């Protein structure tokens, strides 16, 4: 195969086709080719979590995922988390608790927290702390974010 590869994938429900070099990360493809800048480059090493996106239903690091390896994958980014403009449960809870500060970690945090609730609908505070431990936030001290996930879980129950 040659250096540029054509990849068909679905991004936020829309079929897309991109031609990328083999080493291009999904984060670069989303940001530079598809103008989806919600996922952020915070470290490009998979540590900070600001680039967390969902691939085939699992949250992963956009910066550690090669686009060439994503043929036919279903990608969901923060831009796809509000359906028809209606915020999802995590987003609503983050808004209600006032947990959002600078916002740079928020995209990844929403994706990671949503995946956590899908796997564990009634997490304890400690389980939430573990679940979002791969998403660094330098502003909030995490307390309100954890409260927001608890709130989102409780809201679901009602």
């Amino acid at each position, binding site marked *: 195969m040659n250096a540029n590869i054509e990849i068909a994938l679905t991004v936020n429900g829309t079929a897309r086709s991109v031609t990328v070099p083999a080493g291009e990360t999904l984060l670069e493809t989303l940001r530079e080719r598809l103008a989806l800048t919600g996922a952020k480059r915070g470290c490009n090493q998979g540590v900070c979590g600001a680039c967390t996106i969902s691939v085939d239903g699992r949250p992963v690091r956009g910066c550690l995922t090669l686009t060439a390896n994503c043929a036919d994958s279903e990608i969901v980014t923060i831009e796809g988390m509000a359906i028809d403009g209606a915020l999802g449960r995590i987003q609503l809870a983050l*808004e209600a608790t006032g947990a959002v500060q*600078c*916002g740079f970690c928020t995209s990844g945090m929403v994706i990671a927290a949503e995946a956590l609730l899908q796997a564990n609908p009634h997490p304890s505070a400690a389980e939430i702390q573990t679940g979002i431990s791969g998403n*660094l936030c*330098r*502003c909030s001290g*995490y307390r309100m974010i954890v409260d927001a996930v608890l709130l989102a879980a409780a809201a679901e129950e009602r």
Partner: protein
Amino acid sequence: MDDGVSSASVGRSISRLETREKLTGAAKYIADLARPNMLHAAILGSPHAHARILSYNTTAARAVPGVHAVQTGADFPDGRMGAFVKDEPPIAQEKVRYIGEPVAVVAADNEAIARRAAQLIEIEYEELPAIVTPEDALAGNAALVHEDLANYFMVYDAVRYGNVLSETTLSEGDIEKGFAEADIVVEGEFETPAQAHVAIEPCGALAEIDDAGRVTLWSANQSVFRVQANVCESLKLPMSKLRSLTPRIGGGFGNKMEAHVQPLVVQLAIVTRRPVKLILSREEDFETVRVRHPFKIRMRTGARKDGTLVARDTEVILDGGAYGDDSPGVLGYSMLMSRGPYAIPHARAHGRLVYTNKIRSGAFRGFGNPQMQFAGETQIDEIASQLGIDPIEIRLKNALRGEGPWFLGQKLASNGFVECLERLRDMSDWKNRHRAVATAGKRRGFGIAAGAHISGLLGTGAIVRLLEDGTVVLNTGAVDIGQGSDTVLAQICAEALKVPLDRVAVASPDTDGSPYNWGTTASRVTFTTGRSVAMAAAEVETQIKELAADMLECAAADLELRPGGFVGIKGVPDKQLPLFVVSLQAHWRRGGPIIGHHSWVFDRPAVDPKRAVATGMPFRQIGVYSFAAQAVEIEIDEVTGKSEVIKAWSAVDVGRAINPASVEGQMDGGFVQGLGFALTEEVVFDQGRIVNPTLMDYKVPTARDVPHTMKTAIVEAPEPDGPFGAKGVGEIGLVPTPAAIANAIADATGARLRRLPMTPERVLDAMLPAEDADAP
């Protein structure tokens, strides 16, 4: 109260105005911006800590297809920038002074090409002796980091010589007499490391030049005005030729206050005549921007048997790194904080700030205060423990009360410190603390520490405009770096004009159109800018009333603003006008649009010459004081020495909480940043090279490393100078934190740690001196 129209704005926990933007990924940060025809830039960093640049060879880099410009120190203007001392060139010129210092910069079609080309630049160096520690810097025959120090322009009267950039001496009372009166004296040496800010957004900038040669610059920043000043000083550009703007900012903590890559992109935009964007990698952000000052502190505190503090003597050396940046301010301010929030009659502080061949130290949330309280609050705990006095009681006994005054003589117009201590005692159930049972294999401890921090400093302004339809635009030039100042300032404006919050729009800072604002720093925006907003709104109110008086045929003094956007006659409920009617009158019939503006600089002197002597203080007027006390409960693993904070409590006097949830957010976030400083964070240097410039190796706390139980009690001792009584809260959350944790470790183990971070290794060493070091 929340009827949707007339509800008050101040005192409500309103989510940030831009929350939805941030929740949907729509918010645009510097890396998200693009301009037509834009180039991407990359830097080449110095491999040497200290070396003379002999020659550049950029031929290979220029030959790379897609490269549009390569610029080195030889191509840049030779201006010098700096907040207190103008010592820093836009890019390394003639010499390099730290490893990673930008020596060349490339603009190319994309980032990958620019990075590859930068690596092809050849530079010939002559290595010079590297000054990597303050001891090196102070040695008799030390090489000079800046040979021209004596000729640099400085904005204050500094004592400077050799590698000493600034020396500050403060004293009040008679230190010898004070120690003579003391029954016990504790003495110790304390050491704190460089801490990295680690805003999750790395630094970056985008510059674009127009046909007339005027540059527009967007950048990750804490002050569009400091950006403008730094770029123009270093590139010798008239300030009128540069417009500085801001996108959303992904956290700052001090890192984005002074310049980072802005001069580089402006130069490239001028040379290429195309838009140029440069976003630092995380490693470059660690290696080239700035760090918290490493401190070496020698402190002595004396007390009488009854716990009365009588004397404190503090000697400090700050490692300033290669350039002055905000360092003289940090030195002077930390000296001013050396006495803590206590009435110690005899106090002296002497500090030196030295240049070294390392990344510059600069502003970082706390501005030298957390380091100083780490020492001071540890010693108060030691005295309490030696005298058998409860740690909260000894602080209450010595607390500054009422007007104070603060060290050097400034009177306190608002002071909630005693209430903070009392609230903390209650909320943490302090007296029953030792009933808690440690988990098996752990030791449990409780610690408390306190502190105060200013809000204030330098110029600020606000323009409040009433639009034709009665809505409002607020323009302050204050950059919201994520801490929520746009929301708080809008709340102040809405409250002052009694209009619903959604009728107030906040203009994005713009050096062309915003009133000057020194910056988002010094916990100052709510207090200084908020005050200007309130005053500007008051001017709008006056103009509204003058017009309405004519329209309603009454005296202006008989009018009042009414909730929901009305002006009416006091006591006559049905005599009122909607503000849009008044505004239309102003726009089309009389006087022109209603615009209120106000400018202010905090104007009370820090030093009372009748009480105190101060030399080398870079600020004359500083600000008003917020107070805080913190308690933590920790567990220490007996096997490894690793500490875990289980619970944390804070009581904070903010004058008036304009937005209580934001106050809590600042306290939580400050506490956790302080927890990282206390336990895990250290920028490690090896001969000037940063060993851990990645998030793999430099560890900030994750959600699992912090307590979920973090409680904040808000104390409101109204500040007469503040808007609705408010004062700042941005930094105080971490001021007491390292000391509180150190005191808890001492409570749990009996061991006093005087060096940060308090790693498992250091705690275990202190707990079990050499007890089990034997071989099999």
